[in-house]
């Protein structure tokens, strides 16, 4: 138990940005979006499970998806996909020893691209 609680304390330091450089934000974003996307996957499977309870149950559930709160949730999933995916590309590239001295610039570019994509998706989702 003590070892486990020590691990939790030590792992909590992953999310402490004090005295860290920009690339730690990349590390934190990847961990948080990965946890979010994993949670979403379970949620997605549960909602698909509504199909097994017949068309009425599924249609009733789909009505929920029209609420603004649900749309915000969907946008959060889109944001997580873009940020995790683009940051992931940076990590794959550098893991092959390519452009390692430029990883910071690649991270900034990836995040700017991601934010542009999120804004475009957000505008389409909330104005369509």
């Amino acid at each position, binding site marked *: 138990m003590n070892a486990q609680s020590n691990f939790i304390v030590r*792992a909590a330091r992953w999310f402490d940005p004090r*005295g860290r450089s920009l690339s730690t934000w990349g590390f934190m974003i990847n961990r948080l979006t990965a946890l979010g996307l994993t949670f979403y996957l379970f949620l997605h499977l549960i909602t698909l499970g509504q199909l097994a309870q017949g068309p009425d149950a599924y249609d009733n559930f789909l009505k929920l998806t029209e609420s603004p709160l649900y749309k915000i949730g969907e946008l959060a999933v889109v944001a997580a996909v873009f940020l995790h995916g683009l940051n992931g590309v940076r990590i794959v590239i550098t893991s*092959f*020893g390519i452009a390692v*001295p430029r*990883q910071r610039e690649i991270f900034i570019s990836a995040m700017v691209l991601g934010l542009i994509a999120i804004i475009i998706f957000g505008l389409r989702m909330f104005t369509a």
Partner: protein
Amino acid sequence: MAEKWNITLKIYRQKQGEKAHYQEIKMDVNPDENVIDLVERAWAFHDRTLTFAHACHHSTCGACGMRVNDREKLTCITSVRSVVSNGGTLKVEPLRNFPVVSDLVVDMGELYRRMDLVGHQPVNSDRAEAIQPEFRPAGPAEPGEDFIRLSDCIECGLCMSACPVFSSTPDYLGPAVLAGAHQAGPEKNPSLLNLVDSATGVWRCHSVFECTAVCPSNVDPGWRIMELRRKVVGDRIKTLFNPRKTAQVSK
């Protein structure tokens, strides 16, 4: 006349078996002094029970690594001006991820043991012709002769302290050790590739690159870890097509 600043030096204090606390000392300082000068003055004029490590005062021994305002620094080359403003607080703490022995001193024995494991040499020899002419020191060495020089890595442990993965996974070899393996040369000692090609080796690195950001000696551990990965993958591909190579590597 030298510029004078008034700052508060906030020092982490912890003796074995005691609870950690901070000691605050108001000081008049010259902003161009280095942080280690302030720590020495705190010991000399305020509290002789303060424990800290230092030796060379010119970034060669790697003994005075500490966290200064949360950031890993070699305090002998970190000017006061670069980390605090006039009237501000300068916080010094021991390195993370190592057990605290006393106050600002940590036990880095595990790091040194692992550096030995990968065959890191504190002194290297370079062939005269391997050094670019503009960086070749003046001396009698001719092509074919060796220059002896200190290794870039001074084993200060700053990268191990800054690495969040080493923080949660103490079995991870860590950036200094992997960089040491890269510097030792897997070409000369192929068994090093087997050692680093493991869950606690190069594959545990999560590309945070804090190691490179804090390294005071331009070792660039992040780049070296990625280079090691490239060599490991290259070696694996080679062994697919050349079984004899497998036998050589696994020796």
